[in-house]
């Protein structure tokens, strides 16, 4: 298994999902839709990526490019409001956004709640709006409940970009609905992540056997999409049976008991997809307690430093690492691009890296581990 960069659109079953006509996976360069959409999209993409390059150049040489120079007399403050501040994923995203801010010579304001909770995030958002930044990058903690609070920002002339999670449908700037005002949604394509986990897991269990998804709880856009992608891809593997999904409330103890119970009923369980950190680590412990380590293969989502050891000792077969720093970086750059009059794609998908025990020592892979 190589890194995600080795994948081609055909490998991941792309461009099947029509629901995202102008999806742009930075790096693999995947786009779908009609020829006309393609044309428009290419134009957008070129200018956008040009700006990305500009940001890189600015970082390298300390010179501002033409586009950035437009903003020279006015320094923008762009805020990042994460889903929670205490998670390695968002901490890494913050680093990415800071890198973009430094490269573009702009200011970043990082403010969030310590817990994934609407009632804690909204007051933080209100306080950020009160400081009147030029743009807000936000990982909304709820698709619906954050719409009204963000409308206030939009009404105050603040550019809104969704990162990691979204409001409404996640399809923006369509002119329909009351939640399409954010200019862009920048995130890992979680459906794609689920697809990649499924492919890797299918391969490691020899394309046959029973598997299930250990998930947090229904209603979280990202983990729902990972499950969706996983199940969709597994449908292409006729000898693999998918069992009932188990929800663990982000409790490793419960995830462990669930896999033990499933093994009790289904002794020939072949693999589990842990859709987030605690789903995966709890499942791994349950498998160990059941004496099935190495027999029941686990694909884990998210990559804190500890997965290095867990891949090496066989706890995890596969780890799908998101690129949160890229989300922060591209989120910041797209906000800046919009503020400086450049067109921005309404949907920007960042990539993944598939980590295994064979590639984890490669610095190009290890750089995608999340750091605090």
């Amino acid at each position: 298994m190589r890194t995600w960069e080795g994948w081609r659109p055909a490998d991941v079953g792309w461009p099947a999902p029509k629901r995202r006509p102008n999806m742009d996976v930075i790096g693999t360069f995947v786009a779908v839709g009609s020829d006309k959409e393609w044309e428009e999209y290419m134009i957008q993409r070129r200018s956008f990526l040009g700006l990305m390059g500009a940001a890189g150049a600015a970082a390298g040489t300390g010179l501002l490019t033409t586009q950035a120079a437009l903003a020279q007399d006015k320094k923008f403050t762009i805020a990042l409001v994460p889903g929670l501040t205490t998670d390695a994923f968002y901490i890494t995203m913050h680093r990415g956004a800071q890198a973009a801010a430094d490269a573009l010579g702009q200011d970043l304001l990082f403010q969030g709640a310590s817990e994934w909770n609407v009632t804690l995030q909204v007051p933080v958002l209100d306080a950020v709006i009160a400081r009147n930044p030029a743009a807000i990058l936000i990982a909304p903690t709820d698709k619906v409940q954050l719409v009204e609070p963000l409308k206030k920002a939009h009404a105050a002339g603040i550019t809104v970009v969704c990162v990691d999670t979204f409001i409404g449908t996640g399809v923006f700037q369509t002119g329909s609905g009351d939640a399409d005002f954010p200019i862009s949604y920048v995130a890992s394509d979680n459906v794609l992540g689920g697809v990649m986990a499924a492919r890797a897991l299918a391969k490691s269990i020899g394309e046959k056997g029973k598997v299930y998804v250990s998930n947090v709880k229904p209603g979280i856009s990202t983990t729902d999409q990972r499950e969706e992608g996983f199940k969709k891809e597994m449908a292409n593997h006729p000898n693999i049976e998918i069992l009932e999904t188990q929800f663990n409330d982000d409790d490793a103890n419960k995830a462990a008991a669930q896999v033990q119970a499933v093994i009790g009923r289904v002794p020939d369980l072949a693999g589990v997809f842990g859709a987030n950190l605690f789903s995966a680590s709890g499942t791994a412990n349950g498998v160990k307690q059941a004496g099935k380590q190495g027999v029941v293969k686990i694909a884990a989502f998210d990559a804190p430093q500890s997965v290095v050891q867990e891949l090496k000792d066989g706890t995890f077969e596969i780890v799908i690492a998101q690129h949160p720093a890229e989300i922060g970086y591209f989120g910041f750059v797209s906000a800046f691009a919009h503020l400086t009059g450049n067109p921005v794609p309404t949907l920007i998908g960042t990539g993944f890296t598939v980590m295994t025990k064979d590639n984890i020592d490669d610095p190009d892979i290890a750089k995608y581990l999340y750091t605090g």
Partner: protein
Amino acid sequence: MGPGVLSRIADLRAWIFLVLLLIFFETWANVAYGVTFIGNTYNLQSIGIFATAPLLLALGQTFVIISAGIDLSVGFTMGLAAVVSAHVANLGMSHFGLNPLLAMLLGLLSGIAVAFIPGLVNGWLIARLRVPPFIGTLGMYGIARGAAFLIAGGMTVPVSNEWFAYIGNGRIYGVPILVIIAVVVIFLMHYLLSQTKFGQHTYALGASRVAAVRSGINVGGLTMRIYLLAAVCAGLAGALYSARFTAGAAQAGEPLLLSSIAAVVIGGASLFGGSGTIAGTVAGALVIAVIEYGLVFINVEPFWQFIAVGVVIIISVLVDQSQRKLLGGRQDD
């Protein structure tokens, strides 16, 4: 004789629930899959391990609830202890050159020791400053959580120590070490609650603070010790979490708080204080673990788990209330 027998049954309700649940799952497993549920030691081991962490929190919480208090901070006290024990075990090996066994012991003890801080602060707020327990421990919930996340740096703290992993995952004659530790703590807590002045005074405090004061009990000191005990139980749960998952996580105990309170209530304690037993709490924790494990085992749609636990809590509270009415109706005999 009628009310006496009924009240005895009400006291044993958690155990009766447990037996009924086991019969239910055994029957279903036999009919649907042709396998045994309770006859399989694998299932019993799995349920034992599953119940350990919420049970440890619930044991400490039993004293708090009997004293008419509540401790909302135990979940993050557990997380704090998990993170600290993982860190200290690592430091013990990397900085002090301890062998893995000593580093493991130091790590576990540090996890328990750090829990003294939230325990003493809770006790001080509630006993000396007379802050209502709900508010005082809610404040500590935030503080312990912040401290845990700060120490962890937003990450889980992995531990690489074979002794740590052994405590968390090893078995002695097929019995998980975690379960052995839990059983020892159960007996200790049962002794404390039923056979010592401390336990007796905890009941008195829950029934009437004024009566406890008038009886010459040092209510402030008693309150301090009750919250300290709850925190130490959470500290042990956190240290064992790190051992089991070979990583400390700040949010380790957060999802366990509500099920630990539910275990105490199902076990027969009243949230108004004054009643509850260790045996009841043990049964309450097992009821929750058996429901959640059993429903997965027989492959029932996951959402039924929430409904089942909710129904058991409500039945339990209803039994408690009718028992009170029963006693209340016997004023003159």
